């Protein structure tokens, strides 16, 4: 019992400041522990338990391994050997970028997606979302059958009910809207148009959760075509990006990365590497790769661009009135230098912006035009079809829904109740629509509000095509028979128009012929050789 209170460590309650009349006072810690620990095990019992454990443990290890069953096929396809993978060339369906993929198949099940090296746009790349899209095929939450009012039912029931409602809408002349994200398949777009043409008041409304609508609108205003240019990063010697995360999320990251990689390669560019300057307000994958990265506030992005435009306009003696821009968020001298570099690389530079502001995008176009980039790094003759969303159309649809003007709404592969601001209000207004049909892969907020759910299945389960950029058409071939009772959107629309055929585009060998019948006339301009190759392309492991 020491009276030294300054001690850091103590050995008994008393030492730590306990009162002498505590029940534990004056006893050693071991004695206290013995008293307070119930069911103490003594040495004899401990040895007994150890002995039993040892004996039982060794006995339990002596049993036979569990019986394994080996179940061979009854009818094995010729050329198919269990344990040997088959590789199919097809198209990724994770987003409208439509990158080429190779699907590795084991026993009729795709198990891995990798980039298709020969694809002209993605050039062998595949992003994380594309890689992960394979897991969606085996998602246990997928719709397995069509649903009527949240209850599972058969396709015949759904088709009859929807066809009856459609006829009603058609005779009454009600407004029909088809809402989807960007559809990069020309055949799907043609089928949607054919379906909508049978109604008096109909429209296909396209929106994208990651929208590029402002770029399309800016081109509409300045050039009269609502198009998204194809950006050639591989031809650019100076790249200036205003908050466009083109290596991570912007339009088609895999395609952009392939081009960017080419422009940064010292060996193939004769010792020249492109200059990449990024203005952004958050750290992005693109910003981390930039030669020079400026951290500026979101509100200053437009200002920085107009200051740059002012310098380039002055040097090109083009009229440009920026008004009174205000203090530059970046050092003036560095902007001067950047403008000089851009002007030196006329026709080999690229100025892009991820802004949703049409005015900013028009400024971007203005700068690119002054620099002579149109026709060089900014390609409008073979435009990109990877983002077709129109925010104006979408706002109009939301307005019409709120006013209760819509008679029938078809939602294909989109989840507006989740994507859009005010999604809950949208769900409320959906209640006033007479017919809401969701053509979707898995349950979400929008399918929960739909009268009918027509599951479309996974993109790897049916024939389709994709035109990601003008002139580049790739054919998607199925790599697995549909796992569930699902039906691609094309077939559902055909069924409601009374065009359902004996064979479906779901079936792997026959579906191809059915699919070609749905392809629009315009596609026949694509050289037939390409079509044949991309369709039947079956890569053997040796080709990899």
């Amino acid at each position, binding site marked *: 019992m020491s009276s030294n209170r300054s001690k850091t460590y103590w050995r008994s309650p008393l030492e730590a400041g306990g009162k002498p009349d505590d029940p534990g006072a004056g006893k050693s810690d071991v004695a206290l522990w013995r008293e307070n620990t119930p069911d103490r095990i003594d040495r004899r019992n401990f040895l007994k338990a150890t002995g039993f454990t040892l004996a039982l443990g060794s006995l339990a*290890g*002596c*049993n*036979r*391994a569990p*019986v*394994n*069953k*080996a*179940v*061979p*096929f*009854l*009818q*094995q396809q010729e050329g198919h*050997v*269990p*344990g*040997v993978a088959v590789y199919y060339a097809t198209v990724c369906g994770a987003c409208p970028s439509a990158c080429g993929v190779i699907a590795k198949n084991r026993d009729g099940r795709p198990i891995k997606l990798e980039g298709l090296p020969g694809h002209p746009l993605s050039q062998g790349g595949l992003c994380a979302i594309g890689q992960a899209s394979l897991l969606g095929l085996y998602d246990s939450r997928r719709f397995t059958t069509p649903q009527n009012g949240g209850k599972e039912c058969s396709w015949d029931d759904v088709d009859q009910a929807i066809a009856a409602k459609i006829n009603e809408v058609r005779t009454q002349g009600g407004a029909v809207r088809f809402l989807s994200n960007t559809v990069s398949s020309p055949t799907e777009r043609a089928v949607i148009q054919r379906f909508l043409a049978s109604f008096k008041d109909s429209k296909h409304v396209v929106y994208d959760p990651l929208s590029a609508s402002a770029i399309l609108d800016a081109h509409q205003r300045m050039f009269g075509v609502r198009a998204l240019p194809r950006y050639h990063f591989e031809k650019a010697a100076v790249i200036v990006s205003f908050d466009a995360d083109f290596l991570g999320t912007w339009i088609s990251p895999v395609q952009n990365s392939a081009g960017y990689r080419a422009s940064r390669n010292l060996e193939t560019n004769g010792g020249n590497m492109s200059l990449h300057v990024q203005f952004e307000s958050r750290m992005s994958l693109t910003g981390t790769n930039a030669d020079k990265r400026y951290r500026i506030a979101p509100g200053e992005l437009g200002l920085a661009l107009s200051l740059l435009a002012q310098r380039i306009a002055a040097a090109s003696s083009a009229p440009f009135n920026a008004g009174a821009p205000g203090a530059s968020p970046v050092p003036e001298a560095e902007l001067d230098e950047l403008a000089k570099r851009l002007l030196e690389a006329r026709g080999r530079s690229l100025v892009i912006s991820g802004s949703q502001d049409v005015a900013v995008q028009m400024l971007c176009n203005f700068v690119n035009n002054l620099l002579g980039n149109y026709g060089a790094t900014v390609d409008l003759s073979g435009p990109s079809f990877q983002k077709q969303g129109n925010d104006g159309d979408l706002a109009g649809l939301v307005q019409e829904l709120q006013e209760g003007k819509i008679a029938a709404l078809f939602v294909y592969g989109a989840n507006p109740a989740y994507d859009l601001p005010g999604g809950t209000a949208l769900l409320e207004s959906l209640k006033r629509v007479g017919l809401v049909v969701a053509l979707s892969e898995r349950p979400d907020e929008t399918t929960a509000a739909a009268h009918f759910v027509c599951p479309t299945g996974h993109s790897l389960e049916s024939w389709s095509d994709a035109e990601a950029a003008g002139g580049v058409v790739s054919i998607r071939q199925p790599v697995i028979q549909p796992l569930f009772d699902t039906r691609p959107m094309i077939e559902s629309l055909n069924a409601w128009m009374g065009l359902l055929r004996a064979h479906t585009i779901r079936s792997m060998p026959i579906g191809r012929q059915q699919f070609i019948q749905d392809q629009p006339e315009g596609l026949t301009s694509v050289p037939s050789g390409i079509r044949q190759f991309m369709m039947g392309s079956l890569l053997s492991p040796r080709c990899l």
Partner: protein
Amino acid sequence: MGKKITTYVLLLGIALGVLGFFVATAGFHLPGNNQDYEPTQPIAFSHRLHAGELQIDCNYCHFGAEQSRHAGIPPANVCMNCHKFVTAPLGAIQAEDKLATKENRPPKKVVSTEIAKIYDALALDSEGKPDPAKQPKPIEWVKIHNVPDFVYFDHRAHVNAGVDCQKCHGNVGTMEVVRQVETLAMGWCVNCHREVNKIGVNGKAVQASQNCTTCHY
């Protein structure tokens, strides 16, 4: 006298006990070692008849061995290559023929009970025609040769190097019911990999890897 008897009885008891211990431990294997595993299969397929007496090449049925990791169990349509026509032992067919001549009627088709199981699995009737009343049902064979978890064995490498099937699977051509002859333990694998690097496989020089990651990857 009484003491002597007790001694004898005790000695006999101890002798029996020691004997019993050796008998019991003769069939004893360490955990994970399934040597001598000889399960009953759903169809009493005889390797002695097919591989031994009829001399059918192993690769005819186990055609994956040269191309794949798995040698594979033949799909039922491979069985039907022969058993579409060979439906019963010759003796049984001759007996039926004799009986038919005696009873003055056309002979019936004889399908042995084991071959009938293949027909059932494929949903065929005794004539080998699809039977709509039956459902196709895959045959669930019991796997005998299992390597432990986290070991990847590749038939391709071994078969193409010229290793005889019998080296690992024993003389299957003499077995009515297939039995696991070797231990399939790691030491057994590694010993062979060391040995063949010195003496080769059937006289041919080989380089068998002893790298851990060759099998454990």
